[in-house]
C-alpha cells in the first residue's frame, strides 16, 4: 500500500530525469560567412529547432481537439499554426533583390526568388479541403510575419509538385499529399518582418549569434532574405529552420579599395554572450583559396578551407575579422563555378496587348544537361503555346523541349502552370521564345499604382535527370535557379470615370432602344402643310 502512495512522485521524478537525459527540443545556431568573387560577403544565419519524436498532425484528426503541445524552445506561435492546418512541410521565404548566380554561385539557402514565396505540403483527407487549409495557413502566416502573404491567393496558387519535391519525409498515412505553391514578387522584406522572426528564437536577438541580426545593417545589404522552413525528419522529429541570408558589400562602406570585413563592420555588433539553451553555436568562415589574408581571432577548428568558431568556448566579445594586405581588384570575368547554367528571362514588345517571353539559357558545362523549366504565371500574361520555339544560334531546334505539362490560366482566377524539360547541349545558348497576350483587367483589379505595372514571379529551373524506375518523374541534381522577376505593363482604363462610362453607354443604348421602339409603335400620319402665305 505504501508503494501506491509514493508511486506518483517517483514517476514524476523519472519523467523529469528522462527529459534531462534526452532533451525533447534541440536548438542549434549557426552562421556561415563566405567571401564571394566580386568582393561581397554572403552570410547565412541558421537557427534550427528540432522537436524530438514529434510528427506532423494527421489531417484526419483536424476536426477533433488537438493533443496538447508543450514547447520550451520550439516557436509556439508557429507550432500552433502548423498544428491548426495540419501542415507537413512548409517553406516561406521573403527576399529582396536578385540573387546573382553567375557571380555568387548557388546560395546556401536555395529559396532566393525575389519577393515572397510560400509552399507547403499537406496531407489530404481532412474534413476541410486542402485549399481551405492553405487559405487559413496564408492568413495566419501573414499575421505572424506582418507580410502580405495573404495576397498569395488563388490568383497565384499553383501545384507544381515535380519542381518542389518535399525536402523532409512525408508521413505514411495512406493519404495523398498535395503541394500548394505561391509567390508574390512585389512583396519586400523589411524590419517589420524581422521583428516577429526574432521573436520565434529562444534567445531573441539578445545573445548568441542572433545578436548579430541588426536590422540597420541587414536591410542595408545588397541582397537580403529570410526564410522559415518546417520539415519532418522522419523518426527524429519535426524541425524548424529559421534562416536569414544577406550579401553585403564591404567595398561599399570603406573609402579604401579593401574587401576586409569583420562582424563589427558587417553587422555593427559582436557576439558578447552565448545563448544558454543552444546545443551548438558555431560560426563558419570559408577561407579564400588564393591570395594573402589574415583571420583573427584564431579559429577553434580549421579544416577543409573552413574556419570554425565555437561561440561557447571562444573568448568574448567575438569579432571575427578577415583582412587582406592588398587592395581588391575586381575580376574581369567571373567563373561560373557552382551553377552549371545561367538564365536570362525578358519580356519584349512595346504593346500593352501583346508581347513575347524570351528565355536564354547558357550551358557552361562540357556535357549536355537536362533542366526542368517551370513558369507559374498569373493570368495577367497568357501564353500562346503554339508559338513556343527553341533556337540554338538562331537555328530552330525541335528536340530541346520535351515533357510539356501545361495548365492554362483561368481569367480572373487561376494562374498558368507551365513546365517543360529542356535539353541543353554543351557550351551552347538556347533561346526559348513564346508569344503572350497581356490581360485587360477590370478597373477594380488594378492596384492603387496601376501605371507601375505588375511584377511577375520568377521562373524556376532545376537541373534534373530522369528517374530510373519511373520515366515520368525526375530526380533533381541540384538546387533550383530562380530567374529575375519581370514587370509587365498592362493597359489601364481610366480610373476616374466609371460613372461617366456607365452613363455614356447607358444613354446611347437607351437612346437607340427608345428610338427603335418609337418608330415601331407610333402611328404613321400624313400631315397637310399649311399653304405658304
Amino acid at each position, binding site marked *: 500500500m505504501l508503494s501506491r502512495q509514493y508511486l506518483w512522485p517517483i514517476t514524476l521524478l523519472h519523467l523529469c530525469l528522462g527529459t534531462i537525459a534526452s532533451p525533447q527540443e534541440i536548438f542549434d545556431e549557426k552562421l556561415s560567412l563566405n567571401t564571394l568573387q566580386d568582393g561581397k560577403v554572403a552570410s547565412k544565419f541558421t537557427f534550427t529547432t528540432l522537436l524530438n519524436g514529434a510528427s506532423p498532425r494527421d489531417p484526419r484528426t483536424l476536426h477533433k481537439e488537438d493533443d496538447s503541445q508543450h514547447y520550451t524552445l520550439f516557436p509556439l506561435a508557429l507550432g500552433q499554426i502548423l498544428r491548426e492546418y495540419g501542415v507537413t512541410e512548409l517553406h516561406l521565404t521573403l527576399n529582396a533583390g536578385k540573387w546573382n548566380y553567375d557571380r555568387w554561385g548557388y546560395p546556401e539557402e536555395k529559396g532566393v526568388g525575389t519577393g515572397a514565396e510560400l509552399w507547403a505540403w499537406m496531407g489530404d483527407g481532412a474534413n476541410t479541403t486542402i485549399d481551405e487549409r492553405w487559405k487559413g495557413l496564408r492568413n495566419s502566416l501573414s499575421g505572424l510575419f506582418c507580410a502580405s502573404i495573404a495576397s498569395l491567393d488563388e490568383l497565384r496558387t499553383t501545384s507544381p509538385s515535380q519542381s518542389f519535391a518535399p525536402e523532409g519525409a512525408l508521413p505514411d498515412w495512406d493519404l495523398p499529399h498535395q503541394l500548394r505553391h505561391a509567390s508574390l514578387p512585389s512583396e519586400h522584406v523589411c524590419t517589420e518582418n524581422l521583428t516577429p522572426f526574432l521573436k520565434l528564437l529562444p534567445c531573441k536577438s539578445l545573445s548568441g549569434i542572433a545578436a548579430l541580426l541588426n536590422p540597420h545593417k541587414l536591410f542595408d545589404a545588397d541582397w537580403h532574405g529570410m526564410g522559415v522552413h518546417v520539415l519532418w525528419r522522419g523518426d527524429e522529429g519535426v524541425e524548424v529552420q529559421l534562416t536569414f541570408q544577406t550579401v553585403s558589400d564591404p567595398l561599399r562602406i570603406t573609402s579604401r579599395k579593401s574587401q576586409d570585413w569583420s562582424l563589427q563592420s558587417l553587422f555593427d555588433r559582436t557576439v558578447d554572450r552565448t545563448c544558454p539553451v543552444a546545443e551548438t553555436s558555431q560560426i563558419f568562415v570559408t577561407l579564400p583559396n588564393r591570395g594573402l589574408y589574415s583571420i583573427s581571432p584564431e579559429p577553434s577548428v580549421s579544416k577543409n578551407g573552413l574556419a570554425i568558431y565555437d561561440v561557447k568556448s571562444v573568448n568574448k566579445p567575438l569579432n571575427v575579422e578577415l583582412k587582406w594586405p592588398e587592395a581588391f581588384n575586381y575580376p574581369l570575368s567571373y567563373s561560373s563555378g557552382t551553377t552549371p547554367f545561367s538564365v536570362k528571362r525578358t519580356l519584349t514588345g512595346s504593346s*500593352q496587348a501583346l508581347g513575347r517571353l524570351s528565355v536564354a539559357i547558357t550551358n557552361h558545362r562540357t556535357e549536355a544537361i537536362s533542366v526542368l523549366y517551370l513558369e507559374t504565371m498569373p493570368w495577367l500574361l497568357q501564353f500562346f503555346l*503554339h508559338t513556343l520555339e527553341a533556337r540554338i544560334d538562331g537555328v530552330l531546334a525541335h528536340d530541346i523541349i520535351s515533357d510539356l505539362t501545361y495548365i492554362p490560366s483561368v481569367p480572373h482566377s487561376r494562374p498558368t502552370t507551365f513546365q517543360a524539360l529542356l535539353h541543353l547541349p554543351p557550351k551552347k545558348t538556347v533561346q526559348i521564345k513564346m508569344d503572350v497576350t497581356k490581360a485587360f483587367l477590370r*478597373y477594380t483589379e488594378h492596384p492603387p499604382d496601376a501605371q507601375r505595372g505588375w511584377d511577375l514571379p520568377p521562373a524556376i529551373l532545376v537541373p534534373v535527370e530522369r528517374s530510373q524506375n519511373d520515366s515520368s518523374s525526375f530526380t533533381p541534381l541540384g538546387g533550383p535557379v530562380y530567374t529575375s522577376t519581370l514587370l509587365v505593363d498592362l493597359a489601364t482604363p*481610366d480610373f476616374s470615370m466609371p460613372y461617366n462610362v456607365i452613363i455614356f453607354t447607358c444613354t*446611347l443604348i437607351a*437612346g437607340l432602344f427608345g428610338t427603335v421602339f418609337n418608330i415601331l409603335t*407610333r402611328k*404613321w*400620319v400624313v400631315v397637310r402643310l399649311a399653304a405658304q402665305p
Partner: protein
Amino acid sequence: MTWIFAVQEGIYLFNHDIDPYSGGSFRHSPLLLSFFATILPNSTKLASILWAVNDVVGALAMVQIYRARQNVRQSPRDTLVAALYILNPYILLSSLALSTSSIENTLMLVSIMFACQGKASASLFILSFLTHLSLSSLVVVLPILLLLIGSPVSSLASPKALQANIKRTVSLFGEFGLYFGVLTLVSTLVCGNCGWISQTWGATLMLPDLTPTTGLWWYFFTEMFDHFRPFFLMVFNVHLIIYVVPICIKFQYDPLYATFLLIGILSLFKSYTTLSDPGLFLSMIAVFPEIFYYLRHPIVTALLHLHASLLMPLFHHLWLTQGTGNANFFYATTLVFACANGAALIDCLWAGLRIAIGPDVDGYVVTQE
C-alpha cells in the same frame, strides 16, 4: 476572341492532349476546333486561301439572296451586290486579319440564302451551326423561321397580316432544336466533357475577356462596379433579345427585312463584336434597293462611319502601343461607331416602314403621331 491565333492555340493544345477548354483564352466552338484540327493543315497560307474562298461564298450567297428578293433569275446588279460585300472595308479587313467572324458572316448569309430558297433543313442546319459558333445568333432564329414559311420577295410597300401557317414554325423550330442538340452532342463527344459550354457560350454571356472590341460591352464592364456586374450582364443580355419579337411582329409581312434589321441589332449590341458584324449589316442594305429613296440621313450615317473608322485604329494604337493616349480615346471612338451603326439601323427601320405610305407629295409631309 475571334482571332486566328486563338484558334491555332486551341488546335495546338487539342493535338497535345491538353483540354483547350480547361482554361485560357480559347473560346471557339469545339465544332470549329475539330474542323480545323482534322480537315485543314495548320498553316497561315492555307488559312488565307480558305478565308478568301469563304468570302466569295458569302458574296455568292448574298447575290442569291438578292435574286430571291427581286424574284428574278439573274439581274444586272449581281456583280455590284457581290462587290459591295467583298469590297466592304469592314468585311475585307476582318478577312485579311483572318478573323473567325468572317466565317460566321458567311454562315449567316448561306443560312438566309437557303431560307429564301425554301430549303428548310439546309438553312436550319447551318443556322444551328452558326448558333454554336456564336450564341448571340439565336436572335435571328425567329425571323429565319418566318422567312421559311413566308416569302423573301419584298412586300414592304404593301403591309398585310401574316398569311402563312404559323404552326409550321413550331415544327421547324423543333427541327432547329434537333440539329442544335445533335451538334451539342457532337461537341461534347469531341471534347470528352461539357467544359466547353462555359468556355464558349458562357463567355458570350459573362464576358470574362475584356479585350477592347468595337462594341459597347468591354469598357462598360471594365469600369463596372463589382457588385453591379451580374445585374448589368443580365440587362445587356436581355436587352439583346428584347428586340426580336417586336421587330418580327411589325415586319411579319417581310421576314427577310426583319432578319436584316436583327442583324443590325446584333452588330450593335452583342458581346464580342468585330468590324465584320456591322460590315454584314451595311453590305446587306444592297439587297433592299427599294428603301434607298426613303432613307432620311444617309450622309450623316456615312460621315459618322468615316469618323469612327478613321479614328478607331488610330486611338487603339495610341492607347495600347504608343502609350500616349488613354482608354477613353478609344472608348469615345467606339461610342461614335455605335452611333453610326445605330443611325444606320434606325434609318433602315424608318425607311422600311415609311415606304408603305408611298412617295412624298408636295404640300404633304409624312410623319409619326
